């Protein structure tokens, strides 16, 4: 006659090495000691509170996921559940099916742990609405719950709610970036609407920061929008820039790009930079002291006749969409910490030929800004370059 389930559990428990919660607590409080504590309960149980520092692999996923958490089969693994039964069964599987050599089950599970008054960690989680809204992010292993929480905590500043800023703002709001700042002094104009998709015909004449806020909130009311209805300049850059995690540069002129570069190097804030003209786009991530800065790539601006702006020369309406979304992608990668950000590389997109070209960008050891200690960069130097006055005069 087959044994009952209770008999099997009893037998396996008697064959499993158990460890007292007091020992586990000592191990957790004195890391790193090689002990990995794994909670084998269901997700809901884990999320309502677990041992501090415990990893989570539900027993139902043990065989498929344990190697991701404990790759070393000789590591000391302590499993626990609610009372000690499921963890004993899981320990049995690890030892006898998967070849783990040093597995123990915690006596009495988290119930005994709590009875002893030991600390319990309640993980941050998403609300029911957020869980639904961001479900397709959470399903992507590179983002997951942890990445989504990082996005919700992130503060991203967009310079310009124009061609590049429009798609970036919409998608970053949709992605759940918690706080999005927008710097823009302009009002919505009819000629903007060929490409600036965050604005609408019925909002012509409204400040772009207000129009952008409406569109972002309509997609995601949970996003906090911080509006700066101004142009970034030397008088306000050190008021606006501090405290942001990432800056997205979509400005339309060289003086502001140099100003932004110098201030962001000083404040050590990464800048995701794009520029567009006609059918051509450029994209790079300038991460201060990790890679080159804007001045390493372009030490001096071109003369005004070689530096036309889109307003004067025209641009394919979808091009800022393409480049702005590449910027949004880089922002999310930086915030979440996924993939290889476009640091030390410049990506060129040529829409007519449908070609992407990647160029290497090196740090300039003699860079007037990023070769120096950030504290040495003074207010007076921000945004200054040779022939600045002449450049601005020529650019009108």
């Amino acid at each position, binding site marked *: 006659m087959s044994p009952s389930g209770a008999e099997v559990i009893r037998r396996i428990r008697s064959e499993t090495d158990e460890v007292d919660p007091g020992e586990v607590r000592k191990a957790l409080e004195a890391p790193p000691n090689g002990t990995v504590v794994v909670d084998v309960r269901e997700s809901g149980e884990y999320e309502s509170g677990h041992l501090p520092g415990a990893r989570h692999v539900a027993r139902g996923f043990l065989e498929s996921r344990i190697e991701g958490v404990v790759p070393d089969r000789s590591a000391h693994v302590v499993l626990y559940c609610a009372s000690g039964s499921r963890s004993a069964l899981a320990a049995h599987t690890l030892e006898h099916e998967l070849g783990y050599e040093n597995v123990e089950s915690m006596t009495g599970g988290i119930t005994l742990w709590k009875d002893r008054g030991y600390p319990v960690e309640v993980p941050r989680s998403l609300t029911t609405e957020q869980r639904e809204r961001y479900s397709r992010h959470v399903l992507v292993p590179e983002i997951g719950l942890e990445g989504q929480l990082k996005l919700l905590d992130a503060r991203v500043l967009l310079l310009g709610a*124009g*061609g590049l800023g429009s798609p970036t703002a919409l998608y970053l709001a949709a992605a759940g970036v918690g706080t999005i700042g927008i710097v823009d002094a302009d009002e919505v104009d009819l000629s903007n609407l060929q490409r600036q998709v965050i604005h609408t015909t019925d909002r012509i004449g409204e400040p772009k920061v207000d129009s952008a806020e409406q569109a972002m909130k309509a997609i995601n009311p949970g996003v906090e929008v911080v509006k700066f209805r101004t142009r970034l300049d030397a008088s306000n850059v050190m008021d606006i820039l501090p405290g942001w995690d990432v800056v997205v*540069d979509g400005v*339309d002129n060289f003086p502001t790009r140099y100003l932004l570069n110098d201030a962001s190097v000083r404040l050590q804030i990464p800048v995701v930079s794009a*520029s567009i003209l006609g059918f051509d786009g450029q994209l790079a991530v300038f991460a201060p002291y990790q890679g080159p800065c804007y001045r390493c790539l372009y030490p001096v601006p*071109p*003369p005004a006749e*070689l*530096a036309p*702006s889109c307003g004067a020369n025209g641009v394919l309406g979808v091009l800022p969409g393409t480049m702005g979304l590449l910027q949004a992608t880089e922002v999310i990668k930086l915030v979440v910490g996924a993939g290889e950000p476009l640091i030390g590389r410049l990506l060129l997109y040529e829409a007519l030929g449908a070609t992407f070209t990647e160029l290497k960008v090196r740090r300039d050891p003699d860079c007037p800004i990023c070769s120096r200690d950030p504290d040495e960069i003074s207010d007076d130097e921000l945004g200054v370059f040779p022939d600045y006055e002449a450049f601005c005069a020529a650019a009108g």
Partner: protein
Amino acid sequence: MATIRIPPVLRPSVGGEKEVSADGASVQEVLGSLSAQHPATQAQLFGEDGQLNRYVNVYLNDEDVRVLDGLQTPVGAGDVLVILPAMAGGGP
């Protein structure tokens, strides 16, 4: 014969082409034969001292020639030179 990629701002100087082929065994020679074919590019690429203007980056394949041997960098037949001035276009 190397291929030269022409940026948008210089295309009017080369009859609107995105790519131009030019002879030469070094960056200097290739860009020299470009400016011989299209004289308007001369002043855009080179200063009066004969050096590349500081606001123009030139890449041999994917590497900045300034970290190679500058204008003396050898160029092979299948190589691509990318001329890249800064672009500022963005918002308005």
